[in-house]
C-alpha cells in the first residue's frame, strides 16, 4: 500500500529540522566566537610578550641605562599618572662592545678599545591629528665609534609595534633596593574587533621589571 506524507508530518519535520539547525548554528556560532576571542586575546598576548621579551633582551645587553630616562617615581600611584606622551617616557640605554684584538699601545690618543650603540625606545601617536592613542613604539639606534664620536649616518629608526593603547617606562624609588637596578615597563595593549555584529575589545595589561647590569666604560 502506498502511504503519503501528510502536511502535518512535513511541518513537524521542518519544525524539528529548524530547531536542530538553529541549535547547531548557535553552537557553531558560539564556538566560533569563543575561538575568535581566544585567538584574538592570544595574538595580542603574543604580541605583548614578544615586545616585552624584545625589550628585556635588548636591556640585558645594555651596559647602562640613562639615569634620567625613564624618570623615577616614589610609588606606583605617581607612576600611574605618568602620561604616555610625556617627553620623558623614553628608555635610553647604551650597549658597549669591546675589541680586545688591538694592541692598546697602537691606539691613537683619543682612541678607545670599545664602540657603543645608543638605543632609545620612544612612544608616538599613530595619528598626529588625534589627541590620544593608539600609539606606536619606535626603536632608534645611534652608534658611537671608537673615538666616542656619534655616527649619525648609521642612525636607524624602526617601528617596533603599533596600535598600542598604553605604554610607559619608569623606575620606582625603593629605599631597600640598590640605588639603581630595577626598571619597570608597563604595557597595555588593546585591540578592537569590529568585524562581528558587536564591537569587541581585547586587552592585555602587563607590568614587568628588568634588572640593570654593568655600568659606563671606565
Amino acid at each position, binding site marked *: 500500500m502506498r502511504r503519503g506524507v501528510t502536511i502535518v508530518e512535513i511541518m513537524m519535520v521542518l519544525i524539528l529540522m529548524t530547531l536542530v539547525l538553529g541549535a547547531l548554528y548557535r553552537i557553531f556560532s558560539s564556538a566560533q566566537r569563543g575561538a575568535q576571542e581566544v585567538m584574538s586575546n592570544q595574538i595580542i598576548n603574543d604580541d605583548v610578550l614578544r615586545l616585552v621579551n624584545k625589550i628585556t633582551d635588548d636591556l640585558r645587553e645594555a651596559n647602562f641605562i640613562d639615569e634620567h630616562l625613564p624618570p623615577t617615581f616614589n610609588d606606583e600611584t605617581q607612576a600611574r599618572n605618568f602620561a604616555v606622551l610625556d617627553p620623558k617616557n623614553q628608555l635610553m640605554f647604551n650597549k658597549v*662592545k*669591546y675589541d680586545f684584538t688591538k694592541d692598546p699601545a697602537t691606539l691613537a690618543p683619543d682612541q678607545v678599545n670599545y664602540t657603543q650603540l645608543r638605543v632609545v625606545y620612544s612612544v608616538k601617536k599613530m595619528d598626529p591629528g588625534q589627541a590620544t592613542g593608539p600609539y606606536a613604539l619606535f626603536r632608534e639606534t645611534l652608534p658611537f665609534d671608537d673615538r666616542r664620536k656619534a655616527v649619525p649616518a648609521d642612525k636607524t629608526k624602526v617601528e617596533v609595534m603599533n596600535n598600542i593603547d598604553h605604554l610607559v617606562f619608569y623606575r620606582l624609588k625603593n629605599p631597600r633596593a640598590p640605588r*639603581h637596578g630595577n626598571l619597570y615597563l608597563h604595557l597595555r595593549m588593546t585591540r578592537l574587533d569590529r568585524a562581528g555584529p558587536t564591537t569587541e575589545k581585547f586587552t592585555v595589561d602587563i607590568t614587568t621589571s628588568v634588572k640593570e647590569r654593568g655600568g659606563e666604560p671606565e
Partner: protein
Amino acid sequence: MNTISTLARSRGSATLVALGMGIVLLIVIAGVRSFTSYRIQNTIIESRNLKALAIAEAGLAFVISELANNYNFLTHKVNPNLTWATAEDTSQTLKPDSTFNFTIRPATKGTYSGTFGDGEFKVRCGPIPYKDDPRTLNINEAKAFYYVESMGKIGDTVRIVRAVVQRRFPAREFLMYDGGFLSLVYGTPGLNNVNKFSTGHLYGHLGIEIGRILNTRQSPCTPGTNQELYDMNSIISGDGGIFLYNDIKAQFRARPGLPALDTYLRKNADFPLNGTYVSDDARRNGSYPAELLEADPPIHDPDKVLADRVKDKSAHVSIPPKPLPFEMYKKQATQGGIYLPSSACNQDYPVTQGWPSSGGNKIKVKVLDFGTQLRQGNVTIPANFNGVIFSDGPLVIKGNPPREVKIVSRKDIFVAGDFNQAGDPNAAAGGGQNPQRYGFPQNYDDNAMKNEDYTAASRALLNDDHDPTKFQHHKSATIVAHDRIVFDYRSPVDCFENELYPYMKYKIAEKLKDEASARNSILKISGTGGIQTNASEGAVVKNRIASFFEEFPLLDSSAETALADKFAQHRDNSGTIYNDADFDRLCKDVWKKYVELYESKKMERTSPSEGKFGVYKLLKALRNELRNGTGPNAPLKPDKSDDFLFYPEMTTNGMFISCGKRNREFYAGPDYIKLYDEIGSDETCVTTGVGLKHSDRGEMIHRMFGSEIRLELYSIPRITGGSYTEPTRRKLYDESLPRMTTDTGSLDYAAFRLVSWRDERVSLDAFNGF
C-alpha cells in the same frame, strides 16, 4: 516501487547527518585540542628557556664568586678574538648546598660544571690576553678583563651567556676608596693651608663630600683648611651623590679620548645644618643625613667636560665593598709567612684614652720595625718567605720592608713612623755624596707646602719601582686591618728620621768647624761628607760636642759625655779630619742615642708646649732653617735639590685597607670635628703622658703614597678620647701599584662588574661538547 525505494533510502539520511555532525564536531575538538596543546607546548618551551637562562646566569655568578675567592681562577686560556684555547688546571672553592641542589663536579682541569635546582651548568672562563694600555696609569688592562661563557640546561633546552667581566683592584686603582661616604674634609678653622689629593680615582660608595672647613659641630665657624685635587683620573660615587661645599680646584689628567683639564668643581651643595639623622648619636658619630644620602646634586658642567670625569650614581660604576678572606691570609702566614698569635703581641704601646677597652693608656701590641738606612729593624724574614704576616692582635709597623709584604691584623694596625720609602744606598754619587744616603730624596720644585708632589726626578724614582731591574725605593706593601689603620704622628724620631739626621750631622759639623764648612761639606750633596775640625785637641772637641748637647740635649749627661768623648778621641787619635765614614759612624751613634732615649725623655719639657729633649729642638731648628723667618706662619724658602735639607714629613707608602665602621666623633659635612683614625702630637697626648706636641696644626706634612681603602664593613670598639694635631695632608696615588707584584700569595682585594653581555639559545650537542 520507485517511491518505496526512495523512501527507504531517505530513512538512512538521519544517520548520515549524525555522522556528518560527528565529523564536524571531531574536527572542532581536534582543532581546539591541537591549539591548546600548541599553547601548552609554547608555554613549556618559554618556561624552559627562562629557566635555562637563569641557570646560565647562576653559572656566571658562581664563577665570579670563585674569582672573588681566588683571583687567579680560570678554566681555559682565551684567544684575543674571544675563542677558547687550551684547558687549564683549575680548582674550586665553593661548597655544595643540598638545599638548592647545588653541586660542583670536582675537576682539576678545564670546564667548571655542576647542577643547580633541576638544571645543569657548564662554564668556561679565563683572562683576556689584552695588553696593558700605557695611557691609563692606574689600571693594568692586562689583568683587568675576563671572558666567561656559561651554559644552562633544563631538559633539552640550553641557553648560553657570553659575558666580559671587568676585574677591579680598588687598592691598586683608587687613591681613596670608601665603602660608605668618602669625606675629603680635613683641616682646621682659620688656617690657610691646603690638603692636596693627587692622581688616580676617588670612590665613595654611598657618596663623596669635598670642601674646606666651614663648620664646627655643624655650626658655622671661621673658614679654614681647603682641599685641592690634582692629576685626577675620575671621581666616582657608586650609589650616591657628589657634594661640593665650595669651589674646589681640580686638575684632571689626559685619558684616552679626553684631554687634560684644569678647572674648578663648582659648589653644588650646602650642608644641611639641621639634617635628618637616625639619632643624635648617629649625628655625632659619622652618620650622614638623609638629605645627603638621598640627594644627587648635579655637577655644574656647562661646557660638558666633566661627565666622563666626575661620575655620580647615574654612571652606575658601582663597586660595593666585600669582606676580605682573613682566614686565607692566616693560612698563608702559617705556611711560609709569619704568624703572630695574640700572645706575641705583648709590648706595651702608649695610646690615648679610649683605645684600651680596659681603660688606662696602654695596649699590648707587636712592633714590626723593618729598619731603615739609619737604624736596624727587629723583623727577621724567614727563608722562602711568602710575604704574608698575619697577627691576631694589634700591630705597630714602621721602617722599610725588604720585599713585597702583606701585613694583616685582626685588630688595629698603627703606622708609627715613616713606612716603606727608602733611598738607594748605591745611587751614583756624582762626585759628592750619594744623594740617597739618608733616605729618599724628598725634593720639591718650589716647596713642600706649595707643591702637591715631589720633583719629577724624585717621582720617577718611585714610579719606576715596578721595574725589577731597578732599585725599589718602595715595595708593594698591603696593610690590612680588620678594625682600623691608625696613622700615629707622635714620635719625631720615627716620623722625621731622614730629615732630622742630616740636619743633626750638619749641626754637629758646625760645632766642629763653622757653619759655612758644615753646610758645604755635610748639607750639600756635592760636599765630601766629612769635616775638618779647627779644634786644637780632643778636649776642645769634647767641649764643642757638649755645647751641641746643650742646644739639643739628650737629657742624659753620661750618654752626652760618652758621645763627646768619642768625638774627642777621634781628634786625638786620627787628627783634625773626620772623614765621611768616621763622621757618619759617630753621628749615627748620637742619633741612636736619641732614638733609644726618646721613650724615657719624650715628656720632659720647659713649658707645656716646649719639649726639653733634643729631638724636639732639632725639629724646631730644622723648620726654622727652611723658613724665611721663624714661627709656623713664616713662609717656606724654595726647596733645593742639591742639599740634604728636607721639610719634615711623615711618609707612609702602601695600600692601607681597613674594614671597621666609623666609631669616633665625626660630624658629616665641611666640619672641623672629624676624628679620623689618627693619633698623636696633641694636647690630649700630653695630658695622658703619651707624647709631646711637636708640630703646630698644619705644620707637619703627612704624605700617604699609595691608596687608602675603607671598606666600612664591621662594627668596632668606640674610641672616646684622644686626638691629634692636624697635619697638612698629601694623599697621592702610586702609579706603580697596578704593575707591582701580584703574586699568588697576595690575594688582592678584587671587585667584578659586567661590561658586556649576550645570551642566546644553543643546541644540546653544543652543551654536551662544551
